[in-house]
């Protein structure tokens, strides 16, 4: 026997009511429905809440599936229209690693790849000290293990190589000119295949006029670690570039090989606390390094010359102790995002899944670090989650030699200067920690 109940309690769907001489359908407008964003590897989807003083930068319109016809289980399944380029990173890596015996992750090598929509940028001459940093938006897709293996095999286990493919190789030549002796061109046929593959990937890249790949191997860095590289079963810094519209080049490199140090991933959240307690030596651990150097990047302009650069770094660089975020009981700072809104990292603690690859130039005096927060998959915090941060090399000195203490982390008054396309285009100056927010943990 059915009791009298209200219409919103009955489970019937596709309801229509005979009203005013018509069958009128119940339509329900759902508000405040939780959204599970696509992973960044699906091309990030987000609608940044820009401050009023920034130009409108609309996001994509998503198609959302309510799984099992349950409104509590929405899932973004696509875009209404061509997704705009956005920035994201993703990892590739073999699921089985030659270093598996040393690792606790199934993936020992994680490579971040950044693609860009950067106009008129050129690769830097890595042989000089005039360093420019460029941040590259728009992911393409994740390569499969097989593809990665193929690339690695094709490269022949390291060295200075570059892939070029696509319909317009003129820019590739420009890149080569910039790269100088740092890189070599590989035969293009495989690269063409790769390019086709990318173009047909999940991001709409049909309008990409040029595509090329670059495997970068900053020789300065490699030479420093030559003894290790020569002994490692897999040695090489990897990467590729993508030309997208006016983009001429992208280099990326991030890599981690660990020989005997029992920490396996790029996740500094894993490594750093242990390093503090028991710092390894360079003979024990190899770090991941990434290089993004551009002489004419429009994102960041740094002083010419080493001395000026170091002065600038001394005044502006810092590190962001995200290792704290992986530890319970540690308070998180509040930062200003490039959009001008306050981002409470404490609230984002659970979503931090990546703490930057360490990035290096072939210099003892500059290390560039990036980090990523799992923003897009969790829809929290600042969507501009793929910034880069400069770290003074002294940090690593402290780290490695056990000079860095928790006190150092939080009492040195660090500032950080993230660089992103948004910030660089729309804001002047860096974004820093709010004074006084980095209290001790």
């Amino acid at each position, binding site marked *: 026997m*059915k009791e009298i109940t*209200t*219409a919103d309690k009955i489970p019937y*769907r596709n*309801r*229509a009511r005979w009203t*005013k001489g*018509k069958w009128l*359908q119940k339509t329900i407008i759902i*508000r405040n429905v939780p959204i599970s964003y696509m992973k960044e590897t699906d091309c990030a989807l987000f609608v940044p809440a820009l401050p009023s003083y920034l130009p409108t930068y609309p996001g994509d319109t998503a198609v959302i599936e309510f799984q099992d016809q349950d409104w509590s289980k929405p899932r973004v399944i696509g875009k209404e229209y061509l997704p705009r380029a956005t920035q994201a990173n993703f990892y590739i890596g073999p699921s089985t690693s030659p270093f598996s015996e040393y690792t606790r992750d199934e993936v020992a090598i994680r490579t971040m790849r950044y693609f860009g929509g950067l106009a008129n940028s050129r690769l830097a001459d890595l042989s000089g000290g005039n360093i420019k940093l460029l941040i590259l938006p728009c992911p393409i897709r994740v390569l499969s293990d097989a593809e990665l293996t193929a690339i690695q095999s094709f490269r022949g286990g390291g060295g200075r190589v570059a892939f070029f493919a696509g319909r317009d190789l003129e820019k590739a030549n420009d890149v080569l000119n910039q790269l100088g002796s740092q890189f070599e061109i590989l035969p293009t046929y495989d690269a063409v295949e790769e390019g086709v593959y990318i173009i047909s990937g999940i991001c709409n890249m049909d309008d990409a006029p040029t595509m090329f790949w670059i495997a970068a191997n900053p020789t300065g860095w490699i030479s420093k670690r030559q003894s290790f590289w020569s002994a490692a079963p897999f040695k090489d810094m990897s990467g590729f570039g993508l030309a997208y519209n006016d983009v001429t080049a992208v280099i990326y490199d991030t890599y981690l090989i660990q020989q005997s140090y029992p920490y396996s991933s790029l996740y500094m959240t894993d490594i750093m606390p242990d390093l503090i307690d028991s710092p390894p030596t360079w003979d024990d651990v190899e770090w991941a390094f990434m290089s993004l150097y551009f002489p004419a990047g429009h994102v960041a302009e740094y002083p010419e010359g080493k001395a000026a650069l170091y002065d600038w770094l001394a005044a502006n660089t810092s590190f962001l102790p995200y290792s704290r975020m992986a530890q319970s009981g540690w308070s998180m700072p509040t930062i200003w995002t490039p959009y001008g809104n306050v981002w409470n990292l404490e609230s984002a603690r659970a979503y931090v899944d990546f703490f930057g690859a360490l990035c290096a130039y072939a210099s003892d005096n500059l290390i560039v670090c990036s980090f990523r927060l799992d923003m897009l998959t969790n829809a929290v915090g600042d969507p501009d989650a793929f910034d880069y941060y400069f770290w003074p090399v002294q940090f690593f000195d402290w780290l490695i030699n056990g000079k860095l203490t928790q006190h150092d982390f939080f009492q040195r008054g660090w500032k950080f200067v993230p660089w992103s396309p948004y910030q660089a285009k729309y804001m002047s100056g860096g974004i820093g920690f709010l004074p006084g927010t980095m209290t001790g943990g």
Partner: protein
Amino acid sequence: MSGLPINQGTEEYLLDSGYTVTGWSEFAALNPTFALVTETGDTKITMTSELMDDLKTVNDEVNDRNTYKRDIDTYGELEHWSLMSSGASGDCEDFALTKAQKLLGLGYPASAIKIEVGDVPDGRGHCWLVVQTDKGDMVLDI
């Protein structure tokens, strides 16, 4: 996931569905003077204890005194909308129509009494009666 209740902030609207219900159309043709057929208004009635009592009485009475039986078994048709006499058999829409008839007989306005159709969770079609009140739309189901 934000964990918000799924019903939070939801609103319902009635939009023209653009489709027809064959059984209803046939019923209307056979019963052109039935108040739900002729009524074009859309109102709500004030919820009172008396109204709720009447709704329960009508709902229970029809559900108790009539037996559910598929149209195909009664009429040899997949769909046959009809008013039931006490003790007769019928399926969901017949129950709904009969309840509407009784409520009309009690003096409630046809403009607030609505036949509603839809799908049960397993996808089968269903019909029930709705009485629109200022405290919500009340469902009289079988």
